[in-house]
């Protein structure tokens, strides 16, 4: 949903590290009790809610378990499947579309680990942050969400107004890491 001219100015490209702004897709924050999240996961066709700090794919949607009571859902441009919205119409919950609030990047490159280490105290090595793990944390002074999509790729999202701050932080960190 990001505007292309804004997105391009937020791209980071240094030796051994690139941050490519994400384009398209929609974002939903779903909060509810255990049974509600369980029911929503089943409406997506999954057998259970992803465990705490884990993710699960369902068609073109991804469910990210950011908190015991919260699922963050990334969907295609079409949004939530009808089975899910129908189910959520029958139980108490809080579902908020936050597509316009979020801005994100795909992070890659052989200096990825060093660059991330300069932004966050989290240990993002494979043994403590395996593929599929996701969490909110701080990047510098900005609240953000980081998700390991495969061994050498991370997906990072922050609130839109943190975009320029985080892109310049990543640029500086990548420059340091490459030096």
């Amino acid at each position, binding site marked *: 949903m990001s505007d292309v001219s804004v997105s391009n100015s937020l791209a980071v490209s240094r030796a051994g590290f690139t941050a490519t702004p994400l384009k398209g897709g929609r974002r939903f924050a779903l909060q509810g009790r255990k049974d509600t999240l369980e029911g929503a996961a089943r409406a997506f066709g999954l057998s259970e809610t992803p465990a*705490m*700090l884990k993710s699960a794919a369902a068609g073109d949607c991804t469910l990210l378990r*950011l*908190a015991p009571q*919260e699922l963050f859902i990334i969907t295609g441009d079409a949004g939530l499947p009808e089975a899910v919205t129908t189910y959520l119409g029958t139980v108490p919950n809080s579902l908020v579309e936050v597509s316009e609030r979020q801005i994100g990047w795909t992070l890659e490159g052989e200096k990825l680990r060093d660059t991330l280490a300069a932004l966050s105290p*989290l240990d993002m090595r494979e043994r403590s942050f395996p593929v599929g793990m996701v969490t*909110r*944390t701080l990047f510098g002074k900005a*609240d953000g969400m980081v998700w390991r999509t495969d061994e050498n790729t991370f997906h990072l999202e922050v609130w839109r107004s943190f975009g320029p701050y985080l892109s310049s932080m990543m640029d500086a960190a990548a420059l340091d890491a490459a030096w």
Partner: protein
Amino acid sequence: MLLIRCPYCGERAEVEFSNGGEAHIDRPRDPMSLTDEEWAQFLYMRDNPKGLIAERWRHAHGCNRFFNAIRDTRTDRFVVTYEIGQPRPEVTPEQAAEAAR
């Protein structure tokens, strides 16, 4: 770097958390029946111990949940963290000595 164990996310850096004051302070069920002194006691008076304290913490830059923790105010060492709603856990003399170290 001080690590705090969130009961839901595991050990995280202290910067991800915010302190929520002393734990296990129940709001009076019927405030209207209280004297001004009793109400002031509930609102303002805290133990402020030198040593072990049970406090509320919030994983503000993580899962966003409140939880309780027992911490030594002299050393900042955490003895244990536990979910809201659970009773204050017993601290063994060995744990207390370790936290005071």
